[in-house]
């Protein structure tokens, strides 16, 4: 698969691989949030599919259930859940990522219940007790999955899936390292597309895609860059948003995005132990998401180290309108970054609104003019 193919396949809800996988009898389980240990789905022999809306801006069905004070990303996803687009899913996993996501799932199940639906309860604070709770919750999830689909998940299956995901994580890190080079091998848009594709394929096959991309791009150099940027913020799978930034001369050399490196950064399972405990620890500890209400120092330090490592000239922090967790966290981050002399552009945007793209473009252009000179 070449990069053009990755970009093309990442831009559709059901890529060709997925369609074939389904027609071959494969099962697909949808999930929303990076706190979901996808290893459990893969260990059950199923494909974990990260819910997305890919910039869908039609929400008229969703708006009858969620309100206009709810995040437009969630409304966009709900729309697709209610209009039949997501009928290919064989099950759904809810996580309490944020209040908007909770509302999205609740309305989805109220109006169009899934055959298999399970709630994975992710603590907001990492303590010994909450880790124990989460470990047990993962076990309950695994049991529910096994019972409903009449499959068995052994510890070996789980360890196999964990090691497979570890390899993916390592290769994704390699891709981000190549993106961070002084003369980057990938654009931010390309890497985002790869991330998206990876969450709509079985990891064993995605690994091959990654291997090809890494090989193809090993000596590739992108040189015409006005300014190097780190992009962070709310859930967005809008590749065209990154394209807009990069079309003006910015290069997204690093990211701190929910659909980006947050999903794998700092996660490494190790070799042994109770796989549920290992997964719980890996997914809950150092979860770089603002829904973790005591870990701002970790998130701040992670962002600063990314800025330094990727030698970015500035940071763009975006949040979807009504996203409180990012809306507030971005302010804390901005203050901390500016204290260190790192220029920041804060953006509040509507998800999927083409009118908003124009507004964002003006701001990004001005920011690039500021930091690039």
């Amino acid at each position, binding site marked *: 698969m070449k990069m053009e193919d990755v970009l093309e396949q990442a831009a559709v809800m059901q890529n060709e691989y997925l369609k074939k996988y389904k027609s071959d009898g494969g099962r697909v389980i949808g999930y929303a949030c990076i706190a979901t240990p996808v290893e459990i789905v893969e260990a059950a022999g199923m494909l974990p599919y990260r819910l997305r809306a890919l910039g869908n801006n039609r929400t008229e069905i969703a708006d009858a259930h969620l309100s206009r004070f709810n995040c437009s990303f969630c409304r966009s996803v709900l729309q697709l859940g209610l209009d039949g687009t997501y009928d290919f899913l064989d099950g759904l996993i809810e996580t*309490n990522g944020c209040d908007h996501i909770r509302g999205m799932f*609740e309305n989805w199940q109220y109006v169009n219940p899934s055959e298999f639906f399970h709630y994975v309860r992710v603590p*907001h604070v990492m303590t010994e007790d909450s880790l124990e709770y989460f470990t047990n919750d993962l076990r309950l999830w695994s049991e529910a999955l096994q019972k409903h689909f009449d499959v068995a998940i052994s510890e070996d299956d789980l360890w196999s899936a964990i090691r497979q995901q570890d390899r993916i994580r390592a290769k994704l890190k390699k891709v981000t390292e190549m993106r961070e080079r002084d003369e980057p091998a990938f654009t931010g848009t390309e890497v985002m597309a790869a991330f998206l594709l990876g969450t709509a394929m079985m990891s064993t096959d995605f690994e091959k895609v990654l291997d090809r991309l890494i090989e193809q791009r090993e000596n590739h150099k992108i040189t015409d860059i006005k300014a190097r940027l780190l992009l962070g913020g709310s859930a967005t799978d809008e590749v065209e948003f990154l394209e807009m930034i990069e079309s003006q001369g910015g290069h997204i050399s690093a990211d701190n995005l929910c659909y980006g490196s947050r999903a794998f950064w700092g996660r490494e399972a190790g070799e042994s132990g109770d796989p549920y405990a290992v997964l719980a620890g890996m997914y809950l500890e150092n979860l770089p998401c603002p829904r973790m209400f005591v870990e701002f120092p970790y998130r701040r330090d992670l962002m600063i180290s990314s800025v330094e490592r990727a030698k970015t000239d500035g940071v763009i922090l975006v949040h979807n309108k009504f996203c409180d967790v990012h*809306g*507030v966290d971005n302010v804390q981050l901005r203050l901390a970054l500016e204290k260190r002399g790192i220029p920041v552009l804060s953006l509040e945007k509507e998800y999927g609104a083409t009118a908003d793209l124009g507004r964002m473009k003006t701001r990004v252009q001005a920011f690039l003019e500021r930091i690039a000179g």
Partner: protein
Amino acid sequence: MEINQQGLFDRVAKIMELIERMQYKLSDEELEGLMNFLPPDSRHSLSAFFESRFRDTSIIFLKAISNWILRARIAPEQGKKAIIVPFNFPVEFIHGFSKAYPITSEVLSTLGVVALEGQGERYWDMAMGLGLPDHICSSNTIELGSMLGSVDFKPQAIVSAAPGGCDVNAKIHEFVSHYLDIPQYILQKPPDDSERGMEAYIKYTNTLISELEEFIGEELSEDRLRSVLGKANRCTELYYELWDLHKARPSPVPNIFSLYIYAIRFSIWGTDEAITALEAMVDLCKKRLEAKAYPAKEERARTLWVYTSYYFDFPNLFNWMEESGYSHLGDGLDLFFPQPVDLSSMDTMVEGLATAAWNMPMTRQVGGESMSRQWTEDVVHSARELNADCAIYCGHHSCKQTWSVVSILRKELMDRLGVPLLILQGDSWIRKMTPISVIQHEIEEFVNNVVSSKKKTKRKLRKRRQNNNQQQGE
């Protein structure tokens, strides 16, 4: 380019000093003299409390609250740790420590809105000036904005009980703790209605106690806790007396008492002042019940508010409603359904605290696995018990949880009880979003067109049934 930087807490405390000096009985002339000292916004808001039909009780209530504020102000001088808590955290927890004092962000914000000239807008603007988004919650951001942007009373720690129940509440308290560099202690709620969830919650509660003991430098004393929770139990009894009084037609409970009940819950529950205030409220309502006293010619609608009310214009909401014949049976913040705590041991009392925290408004309704299920059950139960004709959702824009599922609540209410729900939009603490005149208009239209026609239909159906029964009898 300096603007007036005096903080909300200080300014409210000064108004509370006036209340402290007030007599328990005030004539109309004495009240007029006192009110003339106050600037227009303060005078307007506070006038709602001093309606002659419940003035004496209001004074008792206001003195209880002013006592709480003024004690909070001198707490640090007395060697006590002043701890900011959100409204959904049971204050008796902190009252249980002799060296700590709870200050509730949302109650402070509301007092600012009620008592201050310009209400709380200046402090909201301070928060916005820092770049905080305008879709966060004014209920706590007004007071917390004051802490961030002005010369204001600074607490020494924050307890955050919103994780699991409310992202925005949790987030703003987290922000303040970092900005002011003060510690934050969390009580997180798992979205889990099972026994397993409650077991985890009790563990988290125990952890919180240990953390607070270390911070405050005091072990939670069983005797002191027993005393505080004993008083909390008495408050619980009085809560249910008021609940039962609400059932009468017309409601003998003044609309504004809905607010008093939860203001007490969120600030002084478990204290003598709380008991005094609640007893006074019960006494007044019993007298009104006996006298069949009601401010309007007829009770035209019994409204259950399913979320919060509006706090930026008390006379034009609570009092206006009552004088128009619309009884306010309570709102979502009243739905905390307290349970008496078993005082026999430290374990039972800690479990009681955990149960109280679990059932605090918002945590109880939207902190579970489903954001709509418990909320719906509570509203259906309350509407049924209190004989509500209709429900009103005040639609504060920052409440993403309730806004996510109000469509479900509306459907369930109608399907199960035939009770219509009015959905309003406005900011409960900031008058500039939706003017009170618009809210009044919408309520009137709702009552005149929806509620009245439902009542007419019910009466017609009842009469038709009676006629049918009669005919069958013949």
